[in-house]
């Protein structure tokens, strides 16, 4: 592979990397930096990749580390938005602790998970999470960090982390309900 071919492969994959970096960091400049650092790392060993799919797997692996670096570097500036503070529970339950509205039956999970369209809806729903909830959800589910690690990196308490993840998962559930399970796409 010539270095021009390699550059064009990196160019093709760059937008995909940037998408995950933005979802994780919620900041354009940090996301650009993390992706540039990842591409620089690839340029140091262009001969090591057999094809585009191997290259992408490798790049995503490096990107994960670069994202954690960016989080460490910028965590003091990762603040909560007003939306992060909103609690959905009050509306979900009656005062006696029963469900205000019974959760819907989401049907056969196999059938849902087979559809690439569902992955796109999930991605759009993650994008709609408020800033800090989105970052924490991505750290947990996409970077696969455990709770203790996340608390250490961000300097937050486990109660704080848990409250944010609780809200994030409820929002995600509402979003999937609205944009997939109630919208007739889940057929």
């Amino acid at each position: 592979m010539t270095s021009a071919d390699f550059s064009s492969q990196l160019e093709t994959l760059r937008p995909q990397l940037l998408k995950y970096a933005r979802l994780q960091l919620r900041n354009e400049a940090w996301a650009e930096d993390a992706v540039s650092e990842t591409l620089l790392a690839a340029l140091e060993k262009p001969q090591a990749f057999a094809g585009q799919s191997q290259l992408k797997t490798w790049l995503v692996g490096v990107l994960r580390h670069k994202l954690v670096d960016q989080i460490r570097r910028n965590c003091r500036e990762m603040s909560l938005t007003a939306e992060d503070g909103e609690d959905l529970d009050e509306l979900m339950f009656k005062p006696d602790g029963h469900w205000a509205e019974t959760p819907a039956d989401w049907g056969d999970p196999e059938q849902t998970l087979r559809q690439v369209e569902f992955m796109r809806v999930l991605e759009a729903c993650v994008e709609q999470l408020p800033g800090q909830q989105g970052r924490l959800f991505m750290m947990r589910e996409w970077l696969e960090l455990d709770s203790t690690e996340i608390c250490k990196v961000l300097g937050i308490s486990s109660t704080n982390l848990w409250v944010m993840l609780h809200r994030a998962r409820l929002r995600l559930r509402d979003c999937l309900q609205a944009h997939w399970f109630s919208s007739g796409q889940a057929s």
Partner: protein
Amino acid sequence: MKLIRTCREVTELALRAEDMRLSVGERLAVRLHLPICKACTRFQAQLALMRRASAQWRRYSEQAED
């Protein structure tokens, strides 16, 4: 330790269990509640689907798109 929990409490425990290990008393309370509550059983299924979907999305993100 309360054995009988409300749906709201069981939901809170189910969500916490996604990220942290519950105490044995909490796990017992959830296990006692689910067989008698269709709503919470459905919520658990929703959480399970979201967990699997996240894992699949993570794998999908590593593969080359067409």
